């Protein structure tokens, strides 16, 4: 018997209970605020950046390698561009990558996972088999291959990550929807004459939403990290576009004297990743799901 009290007929809505759990979790709220700040900065980058001209191929040798001061809070880089400005615009690239990758990977992975979980037999075998094969390819090798065959740029980096990223979603949603498919309400809907399409989109999908949102939030952090790794290796965005990964790569050669050239973008990567991870963990506690 569950310990509930029936003497007060007050029924709380699911939304209120979820919000209650979320808002009393300090790290989740902190994560949410960080993510909101990152998105805000990325959207209003041209208004917030102190030197919008430094985004491009601007050169200002008189002030190159300047340590942080009142005018340049994060210092300047090897050609005298303001690092803060480039970090602010760097968030744009990172978020673009997140939206691009997850915008494709999540729907594809969810759809395949649900199909495999709901239909048994051949469909299940083919999809899970293919997913397992794709999971065996090391992501970095795949990105290197695509970067070398096609030219290394943002779109191809996105393509490389997307090609492998959906597998994680497919696998998770497969497991979740397979257990939902055995619930009585799915059989009842089928007995009521509902089509497979109805069962997949109306009965199973709504029950996957919480899992998908937690997984997607946690994934955003990894995509940012992975994108930065690719740019660091020279497989991502082409210069002079400001990207957090390539900025770290550029600054690395001037270490340890010009530490600020790595610290600024490095901290930005850390900040965004931490935010998404905290938010994801908070959502996981709020929805009470396993990812």
């Amino acid at each position, binding site marked *: *018997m569950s*310990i*509930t*009290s*029936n*003497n*007060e007929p*007050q*029924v*709380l*809505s*699911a939304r*209120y*209970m979820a919000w*209650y759990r979320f808002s009393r979790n300090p790290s989740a709220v902190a994560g949410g605020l960080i993510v909101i700040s990152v998105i805000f900065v990325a959207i209003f980058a041209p208004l917030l950046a102190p030197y919008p001209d430094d985004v491009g191929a601007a050169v200002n040798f008189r002030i190159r390698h300047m340590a942080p001061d009142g005018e340049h809070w994060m210092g300047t880089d090897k050609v005298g561009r303001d690092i803060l400005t480039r970090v602010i615009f760097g968030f744009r690239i990172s978020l673009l990558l997140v939206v691009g990758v997850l915008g494709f990977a999540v729907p594809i992975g969810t759809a395949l996972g649900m199909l495999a979980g709901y239909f048994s037999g051949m469909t299940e075998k083919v999809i899970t088999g293919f997913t397992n094969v794709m999971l065996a390819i090391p992501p970095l090798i795949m990105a290197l291959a695509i970067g070398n065959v096609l030219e290394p740029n943002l779109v191809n980096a996105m393509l490389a990550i997307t090609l492998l990223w959906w597998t994680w979603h497919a696998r998770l949603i497969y497991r979740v929807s397979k257990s939902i498919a055995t*619930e*009585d*309400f799915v*059989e*009842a*809907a*089928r*007995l*009521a*004459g*509902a*089509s497979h399409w*109805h069962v997949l989109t*109306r*009965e199973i999908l*709504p*029950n996957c*939403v919480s899992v998908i949102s937690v997984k997607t939030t946690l994934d955003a952090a990894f995509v940012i990290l992975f994108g930065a790794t690719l740019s660091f290796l020279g497989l991502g965005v082409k210069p002079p576009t400001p990207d957090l990964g390539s900025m770290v790569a550029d600054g690395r050669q001037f270490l340890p004297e010009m530490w600020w050239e790595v610290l600024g973008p490095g901290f930005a990567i850390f900040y965004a990743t931490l935010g998404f991870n905290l938010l994801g963990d908070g959502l996981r506690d709020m929805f009470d799901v396993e990812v």
Partner: protein
Amino acid sequence: MSSLLEIQDLNVSFRNYGIQSNVLKDVELRIPEGGRVALIGETGSGKSVTSKTILGTLPENAIVESGSIRFEGEDVLALSQGKREAMKGTAFSIIMQDPLSSFNPVFRIGRHLDDVLRFADRRLGESSSVADRRRRIDRVLRQVQLSDTDRVFNAYPSQLSGGMRQRVLIGLALLHQPRLLIADEPGTALDVTTQDEIMKLINRLVSENGLSLLMITHNLGVVRKMADDIYVMRHGEIVEHGSLTTLFKTPQQAYTRELIAAIPPLYGPGVEDQEPVETEPIISLSNVSKSFQEKLLFGRGRSHLAVKDVSLSVGRGEIFGLAGESGSGKTTVARMIMGLIRATSGKIAVDGDAVGEKGQGPDFRRLIQIVYQNPGTSLNPKRTVGQTLSVPLRFAGLSGSEVEKRIHELLAHVELAPHYISKYPHELSGGQKQRVAIARALAADPKIIVLDEPTSALDVSVQKNVIDLLQRLRDELGLTFLFISHDLSLMRNFCSRIAIMLRGELVETGEPRAVFADPKHPYTRALIAAVPVMSDEEDRLKPKTSLEEQRRYLADTVA
């Protein structure tokens, strides 16, 4: 008689989502030395919270506001944490409700018992050797009538039957010879014949060892056999208290009277007879068998015959009851009739059409609908009542406004107000959810509804309302019910004909009046005799069954 445990003015509240709710209000309860006390009430009445407060296992969000629990004169609520821990298992023990989930499946039974003993010894500051503990465990296992102690000791939980696991759980509670035994719905998860055995065992242990018993249950028939003193609980308050005979014969409170009246009688003047229905058959099975094949990696596994050569026919408008214990194949029969699984051999015809030969189109599916046992899992938690009900209607080709109109009609049929249309399942009570599930079954305009233990997850008073509703719907809409259950007293009153299944075979069929008055098959006799009833008259009217007969069908519960 001096009292072993005395609860006074106990107030416990829970904090959930910033809202504080009083779960126990001024609870007073007294267990005399060697007495058997029952705490009865419906879901959410606070009876389990009471037992948890005694044991000291309340969840973190619970607050004991005031009151005292005196065990032999000492207030346990005022004791230090360590002293309180030491009382667990030695002063009082609990027998858990669910024999399966109470064991860790990866450890052997012996390990569970030994761990409990070892840690309890350590808490008491005693040291014990493995052999010594083993000797004590064997003694306890023999006490709970598990005579093959070696086999039980070395078995994994999954290798024992439900009845045997329940016995081991009782053994666990007895390991340290507690003074007070708390039994939280023991045997509820088991079949009636097994439950009967377990009740007898607990009774014997209590009287032989001079224990006191606190019995927590919602089953009044069980209470009659196992308690002398009864406390009735509702909404966290003790509404009535009295000895067994006075409370059952002359209940003072309206709530207690309702609770007793809601229980369907097995025999006597209160029994309702359903009129026999003489019509052409709508469902007929002839020589139907079903075997399940175990799937192995290579080759074929053993096959298991779930249904053996079953022939039956159900007339139009009948309420046909299929009774049997778990694993008897009653659900398999229903699923074959619904066309959800195919029969291995034999013929099934529904409404003149053979099932399983041509593909089951949407028309066939709508012909038979089902109401599941657990309304919690049969309704999609993410969809409102209106959305759930609209599915069968939209797939029957109704337009938007027609759907709306029909949903209102359906809600009226199941006696729910129109505003329930926008509610989610978690906002409804168990009985309301089951009404929605019934409305969904009706929405498809079926001729037959399979009722798969539709009331076993509900409280008795709610069960009565749902059964009345089903009865009315059958009369108004001319439906045929196939009622699957293990609750024989309910079936006696609700079904127009019943069939008893044992291990995949149909052992007896007939009108309830005839079957209950003069059961032909020894298993039917054993089954009816095991049903806990409300009065001595009913006990006398039960069929006589020999111990030997019972043993034959209970072979698996005693090692």
